[in-house]
């Protein structure tokens, strides 16, 4: 019996031990579970990593590529948009077909690559050999669907990224600029100045993945997808006119062997720019292959002495000052001395003195002497104030980057000697941008208002509703009556004077030629270097558009505003009048 009792005790002890082990194990498990599930998730110790770890596995940071907004012109032609480009890499180690077969298959899509070159590339490395960059989406799809003996090709890797594409190449590049490929930041033109309107906010969307790897939307973030705006940045640019202007400019520049040129066409009433071309230009799709100096638009960032195209403005200022009237006539001696400096008319050598001429003839002959005699009637300090009031020293406020304000001499310097007013009377001795001259010409056309030139019309949705439009300022600088008088005088330049080569049959066109010496950076003027220009306003009976053409340093002999710039203006006017459906004046 005692043996039996001892046995029973042993069994009890064993049971107790087993029970203890199980209970301890259970507590262990519970405490571990508590650590993992409670402390690990909500605690602040290192166990918190578990929660992050779990989240990492489930959560998927969707970086939905938020493309920059496309840019369209006033007729909805696309000027810039984002597209996916693919880079093809191969991993030869993963090849399951013969290298030659793969090269042959790839060559059917990558037609520019040669088979032996492809084979050489396959031998370079075991993995990650870059074969081709900038493949379009359709090319990438073709590569994806390549088959050898009906089996897909292993070891091909397509990596996609977004790149800005400019289908019109260099046509609008001076206005639009380009986007840096890696940083995706706008670097020139509108891409740079309108970054806020173009770049949508980059948003990282966190999504949860289910067991199958499908994405689960989180309710509050869903809005981002559906409110994904489809706005486009619409410009005031008219692509066909822009193209016509560039073609005309390029052709003439080649003809006269010019350094550079610019054409701007603007609506005189609201300052919207229909065409803005500067040459030489660059293709924003391959910006890295061009000289960095081309990335600025010289029509707004470089100063020049406007020369005779400023004469109509001076006439308006003289009207404003009350020193001339409709019947004023001047005796043009062809040549004069101011402060000991000889000043001649450009045609003094051929025609000598013009004699008694009226205001219209001063502009028609582009008489320097006539202008000097008009401006000397205004007190130099008054004249200086008038020039300042035109905003020559201020930027026009165009929505493009890099605009430079014009330069007037210091008031003391300007008023001390008569030569300053005299040279300013025919548009020399101060410098402005071509755009500023256009703005002033537009003021003559629109009844004396300085409008703000701009190229951005607004952010437009697919239904044609504007979501943002620029606020533009205007400033009255001439009385409407005076502006109208000057416009009529300018019309005679095209009908009878130096601007005849800009005439478009049936239309009343006002214009003014300009041929100015080029100021040397070291002071004085460069010999044999001139800048020819032409300004035009159409139609005179109901002015709507102003245009400026500037051709810098034409090397061909007999290059003047009338022979170089005016013919370009005529071509552009032809396109403008046709495209804007403006009926003939008579």
């Amino acid at each position: 019996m005692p043996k039996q009792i001892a046995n029973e005790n042993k069994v009890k002890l064993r049971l107790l031990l087993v029970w203890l082990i199980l209970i301890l194990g259970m507590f262990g498990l519970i405490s571990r579970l508590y650590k993992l599930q409670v402390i690990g998730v909500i605690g602040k110790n290192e166990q918190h990593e578990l929660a992050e770890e779990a989240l990492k596995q489930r959560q998927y940071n969707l970086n939905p590529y938020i493309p920059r907004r496309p840019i369209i012109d006033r007729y909805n032609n696309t000027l810039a948009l984002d597209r996916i480009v693919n880079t093809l890499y191969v991993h030869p180690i993963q090849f399951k077909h013969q290298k030659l077969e793969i090269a042959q298959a790839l060559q059917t899509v990558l037609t520019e690559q040669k088979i032996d070159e492809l084979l050489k590339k396959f031998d370079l490395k075991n993995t990650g050999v870059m074969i081709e960059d900038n493949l379009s989406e359709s090319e990438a799809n073709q590569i994806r669907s390549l088959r050898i003996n009906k089996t897909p090709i292993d070891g091909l890797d397509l990596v996609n990224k977004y790149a800005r594409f400019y289908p019109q190449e260099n046509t609008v590049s001076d206005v639009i600029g380009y986007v840096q490929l890696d940083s995706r930041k706008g670097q020139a033109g509108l891409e740079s100045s309108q970054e806020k309107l173009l770049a949508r906010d980059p948003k990282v969307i966190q999504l949860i993945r289910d067991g199958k790897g499908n994405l689960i939307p989180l309710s509050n973030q869903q809005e981002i997808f559906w409110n994904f705006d489809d706005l486009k940045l619409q410009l005031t640019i008219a692509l066909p006119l822009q193209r016509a202007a560039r073609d005309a400019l390029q052709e003439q520049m080649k003809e006269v062997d010019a350094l550079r040129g610019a054409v701007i066409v603007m609506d005189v009433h609201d300052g919207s720019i229909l065409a803005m071309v500067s040459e030489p230009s660059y293709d924003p799709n391959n910006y890295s292959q061009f000289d960095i100096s081309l990335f600025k638009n010289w029509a707004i960032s470089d100063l020049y002495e406007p020369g005779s195209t400023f004469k109509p403005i001076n006439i308006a200022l003289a009207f404003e000052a009350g020193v001339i009237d409709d019947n004023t006539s001047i005796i043009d001696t062809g040549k004069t001395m101011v402060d000991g400096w000889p000043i001649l008319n450009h045609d003094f050598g051929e025609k000598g003195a013009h004699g008694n001429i009226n205001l219209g003839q001063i502009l028609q002959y582009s008489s320097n002497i006539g202008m000097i005699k008009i401006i000397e009637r205004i007190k130099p300090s008054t004249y200086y104030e008038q020039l300042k009031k035109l905003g020559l020293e201020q930027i026009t406020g165009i929505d493009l980057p890099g605009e430079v304000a014009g330069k007037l001499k210091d008031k003391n310097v300007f008023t001390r000697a008569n030569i300053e007013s005299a040279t300013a009377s025919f548009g020399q001795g101060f410098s402005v941008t071509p755009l500023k001259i256009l703005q002033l010409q537009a003021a003559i056309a629109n009844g004396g208002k300085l409008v703000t030139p701009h190229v951005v019309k607004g952010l437009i949705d697919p239904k044609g509703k504007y979501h943002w439009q620029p606020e533009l300022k205007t400033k009255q600088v001439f009385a409407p009556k005076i502006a109208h008088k000057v416009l009529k005088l300018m019309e005679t330049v095209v009908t009878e004077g130096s601007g005849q080569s800009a005439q478009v049959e049936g239309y009343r066109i006002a214009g003014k030629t300009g041929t100015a010496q080029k100021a040397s950076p070291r002071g004085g003027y460069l010999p044999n270097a001139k800048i020819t220009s032409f300004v035009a306003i159409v139609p005179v009976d109901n002015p709507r558009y102003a245009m400026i053409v500037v051709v810098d340093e034409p090397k061909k002999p007999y290059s003047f505003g009338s022979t170089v710039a005016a013919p370009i203006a005529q071509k552009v006017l032809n396109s403008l009048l046709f495209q804007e459906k403006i009926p003939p004046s008579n």
Partner: protein
Amino acid sequence: MQSRSRQVTPLKGKKRVSSNSTKPRKSVTPISKKRQTNKVSMIESLESRRSKIPGWLKSFKILENSSSFLAFCLICSSLGIYGWIVLTQQTWSQQYRNLENLQRQERDFTVTSETIKNQLAEETKIKETDLIAPTPEQTIFLKSSNSRPLKSANQELETNNFQPIKLPLGY
């Protein structure tokens, strides 16, 4: 010894008692008889208790029934909701893929059409194509006709007075 051992075994396990119940019980000692009578009295007392179920137990029973019904409903609805969630997820990811696809196609389409446009424009520069830029000279401008006063609807009705067509009766 055998009879003794038989007596012991039924005490240890009830099963044995039931299995040996076919055998005559008369030889069994009075002790087992006593137990039997005890058992009967226990059953009786249980039966009498069942007939008097207390109210709280009843309410527990109701609670149990209703809660199991509720649990059933909840399980059903949670299954439904789960299914719905899975379905929405699937639809969502499908539609998202669809959206991406459409966006890609739109981009492709724009790129192609604009590139073609540019190519065409570039080709016009080549003299052999005989394409020239349009000018207002080649355009016909039509003068807008003088605006005619609108006729009122009543007048129109008067002029278009309906006249019944005379058809022969025998037609």
